[in-house]
Structures are given as structure tokens and as C-alpha cells.
């Protein structure tokens, strides 16, 4: 009932992602969110890093830039500052945004620059063959964690909020409507928005952890979901390894480029 044709580069389909990969669900939800906000297609720009998730930019009929592993937000910052009329959306993976690009995520949030970052969190490095990522849960197996993973996971929500993002929300591919709504809210926010979408990589992650089909992975994600309202009454122990969903932050806060123009440009021109 939704016509995606207006927003996709049809000649690039079918896309490269594996059968049942949640990336396609996030892509479609993003399209609906962008449609809902009603931006002119010529004023939207999508930017991505490197990874399976980062291939998203190639499928959308906007200006698009497929950059380097981890650096999408830094490229996006330059674009937004050079052409503030552009509505800038970044697609990134959990490795892209949380490992190699972690510093850029922190500083984009700190500046509260008007960029919406959609993090495809599939708990693994999909593109390079299933090595552990900063969000691989403990005890799970990855190609570089054959004995089970021991590291602590990143909490993208705490990270984004701590760094200063004015919008932060987490959802999962099992609820495409919510993905659409949260991305839409993020797009509406004039400032830095982080939307973490917990996704499935049954091929590189699930397969090694007794969940080789997308359906099994969806079940695994779903059974761990705790909506924020419920989580508030639960202890830390009870919340371990759960996926808390909801809008964690949504505040108004001065936006970087506007502040630059209001303060620096105005003062410099006065000289």
C-alpha cells in the first residue's frame, strides 16, 4: 500500500543482501519515514560507511555517498556545513559506528549537528565474515571469538545521550512500524539523532549460534525486547542481555550549524 518506487533506484534491485536480512526492512522503514516527513527528494542526502548495512545508500534515489569504514559521520558533517539546506541521513553498522567510527559518533553527538544516524545493529561484522563487533553479546560465538565472546557490549543509547545527542531511540527489525516511527521522529528533530535498529544477521551471526534462519533470529530478538516503560521497574540483573526499546531522549537543543551562523558568522561579518 506504500509505493516505494518513487524513492528507490529500481535498476539496482534486487538488492545484494542475503535472504531475510533485516537491512532491507530498515531501508524500507527509512523510506516511509522520509516520505512521511515530506522532504523534496533533491534536498535529501544519504551517507554510509563500509559494511553490509552501508550498502543502503546505493538503493535510494537521493544524492548519496558511500564512504570509508567508520567515517560516514565525518563526511556528513562537511556536507551539512557546506550545504545546510540538505537533510542528511547516515546509514551505518554496529562496527562502523561503534568501533572504527566511535569517535565520530561521539563528536557528532556532542556538536548536536543536524544529522540523523540510523545504526543497523546486527551484533556482528557481517561483510567481513562474522568477526565479533562492539555489540556481540558475551558467550556468543564469532569467527574471531571461537571460544565465546568475553567483551562487554556497547550501549549505543547511553553512548549517544552521554555524548550529547538530542534524540536517541532503539527499536528492532521485528517491528517495522516502530522503526519507521522512530526514524521519522529522528528526522523531525533539529539536531543529532541516533536510531539504533537491532537487526538480524543469521548468515554470519545466527548460523554460528544455533539460529540459522531469519525466523529463529526474529524470535530471539523478540523474546528479549523490553519496552522502556516496563524496563523502568526492572532491576539491572533482570535487564541483562535484554533489548530495551523506546525513545530514550528527545529534547530541544541548539543545533551546531545554526549556532555557527548565528554566533560566528554574524560576529565575523560585523568586523
Amino acid at each position: 500500500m506504500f509505493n516505494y518506487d518513487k524513492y528507490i533506484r529500481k535498476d539496482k534491485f534486487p538488492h545484494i543482501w542475503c535472504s531475510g536480512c533485516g537491512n532491507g526492512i530498515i531501508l524500507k522503514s527509512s523510506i516511509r519515514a522520509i516520505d512521511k516527513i515530506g522532504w523534496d527528494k533533491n534536498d535529501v542526502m544519504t551517507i554510509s560507511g563500509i559494511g553490509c548495512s552501508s550498502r543502503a545508500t546505493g538503493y535510494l534515489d537521493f544524492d548519496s555517498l558511500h564512504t570509508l569504514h567508520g567515517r560516514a559521520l565525518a563526511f556528513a558533517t562537511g556536507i551539512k556545513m557546506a550545504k545546510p539546506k540538505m537533510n542528511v541521513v547516515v546509514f551505518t553498522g554496529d562496527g562502523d559506528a561503534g568501533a572504527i567510527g566511535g569517535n565520530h559518533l561521539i563528536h557528532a553527538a556532542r556538536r548536536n549537528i543536524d544529522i540523523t544516524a540510523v545504526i543497523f545493529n546486527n551484533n556482528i561484522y557481517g561483510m567481513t565474515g562474522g568477526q565479533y563487533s562492539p555489540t556481540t553479546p558475551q558467550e556468543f560465538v564469532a569467527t574471531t571469538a571461537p571460544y565465546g565472546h568475553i567483551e562487554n557490549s556497547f550501549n549505543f543509547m547511553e553512548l549517544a545521550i552521554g555524548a550529547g545527542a538530542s534524540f536517541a531511540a532503539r527499536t528492532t527489525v521485528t517491528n517495522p512500524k516502530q522503526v519507521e516511527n522512530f526514524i521519522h521522529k529522528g528526522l523531525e528533530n533539529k539536531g543529532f539523532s541516533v536510531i539504533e535498529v537491532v537487526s538480524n544477521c543469521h548468515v554470519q551471526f545466527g548460523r554460528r549460534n544455533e539460529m540459522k534462519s531469519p525466523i529463529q533470529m526474529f524470535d530471539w530478538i523478540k523474546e528479549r525486547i523490553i519496552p522502556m516503560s516496563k524496563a523502568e521497574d526492572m532491576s539491572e540483573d533482570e535487564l541483562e542481555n535484554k533489548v530495551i526499546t523506546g525513545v530514550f531522549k528527545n529534547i530541544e537543543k541548539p543545533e551546531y550549524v545554526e549556532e555557527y551562523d548565528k554566533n560566528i558568522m554574524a560576529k565575523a561579518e560585523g568586523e
Partner: protein
Amino acid sequence: MAKGKKYIIKIKEDYCKSCRLCYSRCPTNAITANPKNMKVQINDEDKCIGCLVCENICPDFAIEIFEAEDN
């Protein structure tokens, strides 16, 4: 959703990658698996209630639901 509304299920077979996400979630069994290749196929279009669960979950842009009136 108004009662008695009719829906048309449009499938792009060449896009479908047989992931099973849509028909395993369809609340009415309006769609089902083609036993040959596990791609989606229509079981009974009349059963479709237009809930869009399938359309929204399909990662491959392979299934679309239309209201009968608006073609």
C-alpha cells in the same frame, strides 16, 4: 479498517528470496509458501485483511498490498 474491504496482493517473484518472514507472520494465511522453492505465493486473496504485516516485513520489496478500489 472498513468491513468487507478487498485487497489485492502483488508479488514480485523475481525479488522474493524465500526468507519466509511474510507468510510465517500473516495472521490469515492469505499468503503461503510455494512448496517448490519456498517463495511466497497467494493462498486465498479473499482472506487478506490489509494489515500490511507482510509488506512491511519483507526485506526485499517483493510483496505489496493494494486496496481493491484503488487498484
